[in-house]
């Protein structure tokens, strides 16, 4: 773990903090999330490998979403929420540092939520607002919108109606729009919080393929309740479980190994479908 004295927000180093190897994009050390007196997550230490897909699985209420939201400081929005421990990006930027540039951090570590949440404005405005905020010039914005909409396979469906309200799209299209909106800001990491759970099976399949296609381009962390989905797309898996009244990481490693031969007995029962 690195103390704030040795690693400052925005500081660039050839590699992350001690213990964080160069192939990891996010290095999480002894991370705990507290809501006033309640501890939701306790003592998670985990390296998220760069350019790969890491799935966080486990039963409901074991802190996966709290953990995910702490990775781009969305926990700051919750009154009474306190995060201890450290999270570093691979260039040494400490996400948990009190003086970290949170707005820039959230550009670098994007998130897509369970329910699609486009702004109730035109499809184009959904991109223009964040792109302008992060310094894109008006001249470059149309090309950027087309590029990311093509990337998520939505361009052919919406290219002639960018002026229409984004909430008029179907649920699956809205979720792909939200993914495109996050990708437009050129993030290094994208967090997905059960991105398919509010979608029908067909839309869910499209979004899953899309997430799979991001592999190698950026780092993906996905919380999912679909174990089959996690098996299909994840390179690495982390199993969360309730231990002593708080969520804890009980098993992590390459997805093949975690799903086929988990070492932790609780994880083994959960992954076999016998518990949870």
């Amino acid at each position, binding site marked *: 773990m690195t103390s704030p004295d040795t690693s400052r927000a925005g500081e660039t180093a050839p590699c992350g903090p001690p213990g964080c190897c160069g192939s990891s994009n996010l290095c999480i050390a002894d991370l705990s999330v507290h809501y006033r007196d309640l501890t939701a997550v306790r003592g998670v230490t985990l390296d998220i490998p760069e350019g790969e897909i890491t799935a966080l699985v486990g039963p409901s209420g074991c802190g996966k979403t709290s953990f995910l939201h702490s990775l781009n400081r969305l926990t700051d929005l919750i009154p009474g929420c306190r995060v201890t421990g450290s999270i570093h990006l691979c260039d040494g930027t400490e996400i948990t540092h009190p003086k970290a540039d949170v707005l820039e951090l959230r550009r670098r570590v994007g998130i897509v939520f369970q329910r699609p949440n486009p702004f109730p404005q*035109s499809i184009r405005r959904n991109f223009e607002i964040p792109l302008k905020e992060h310094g894109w010039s008006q001249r470059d914005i149309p090309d950027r919108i087309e590029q990311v909409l093509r990337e998520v396979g939505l361009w052919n469906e919406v290219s002639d109606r960018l002026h229409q309200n984004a909430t008029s799209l179907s649920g699956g299209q809205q979720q792909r729009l939200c993914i495109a909106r996050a990708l437009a800001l050129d993030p290094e990491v994208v967090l997905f919080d059960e991105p398919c759970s509010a979608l029908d099976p067909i839309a869910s399949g499209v979004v899953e393929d899309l997430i799979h296609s991001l592999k190698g381009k950026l780092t993906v962390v996905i919380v999912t309740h679909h174990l089959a989905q996690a098996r299909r797309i994840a390179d690495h898996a982390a199993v969360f479980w309730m231990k002593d009244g708080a969520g804890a990481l009980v098993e992590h490693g390459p997805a093949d190994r975690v799903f086929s031969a988990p070492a932790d007995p609780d994880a083994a029962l959960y992954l076999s479908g016998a518990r949870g």
Partner: protein
Amino acid sequence: MTTFSPSPVRRSPSKWPDRALALVGAIATLLSFGLFVWLVWDLVRLGLPRLSWTFLTAGVEDAGRSGGIGPLLVSTLWVLLCCLTLAIPLGTGCALWLSEFVRRGSLLARLVTGGVDLLASVPSIVFGLFGMVFFSQTLGLGFSILSGGLTLACMILPILVRTTLSALEALPADLRPAAAALGLSKTTATARILLPAAFPGIVVGITLGIGRALSETAALLFTSGYSTRTPESLSDSGRALSVHIYDLALNVANGAPMASSSALVLLAVIFVVNAAAVTLAESWLRRRLSFS
């Protein structure tokens, strides 16, 4: 294994309660709407014969028994403009602060909203006295359009704060995290996402405020004054239409017919100003959300 005994023959639920409720609702609607139609019909019947272009443009003569209401229309619109110029930014700002910058349910938020609600229940005559003491005397604005407008602004402020606050609080809960997740500053999220989304609700508040301001008499009696001349500046005294109607109905013998005509014009002004506000807001919204 559990065995179920055959259930007794049951009557289907009676349809009478639903029918009775629908009937009571229909009667209540008929009464409410009927009252409105009656009121408008009465005004049209009594007031329409005297309505003419001259009536709308000419000055007041013989204490209102003859002539027109031209200068009063000008005064009314100036008072309204002063009132809205102050009340809209103040009301929106206050609601924004309560909704976005103060934790909901905190002592501070409860104190301010409680104060605003209290302000809403203050009788307008009290606002009138306050306006006379503070704006007219203490600030030295005298009986003027400005004094009246500022007093009215204080009076409609709680309506604007409450409706804007309700509109902001009724927005989908995931808009704020969505904005924060994209690294948007609070200012951008508020100005570019929350306010446009809450805009229809804010317009409702403004139209309610306009209605209240245009129909107000008590708050203007002591502040904007009685003068029936056309105001040449904001520091001139000017009689609002509502004050004129009150004066004709109570203080002028045989003034009732002219009061009806003036009331009909006031109703039309409220209708036109509201329609204009809603149309402007809708067209702005359509441009903003769809074609930008």
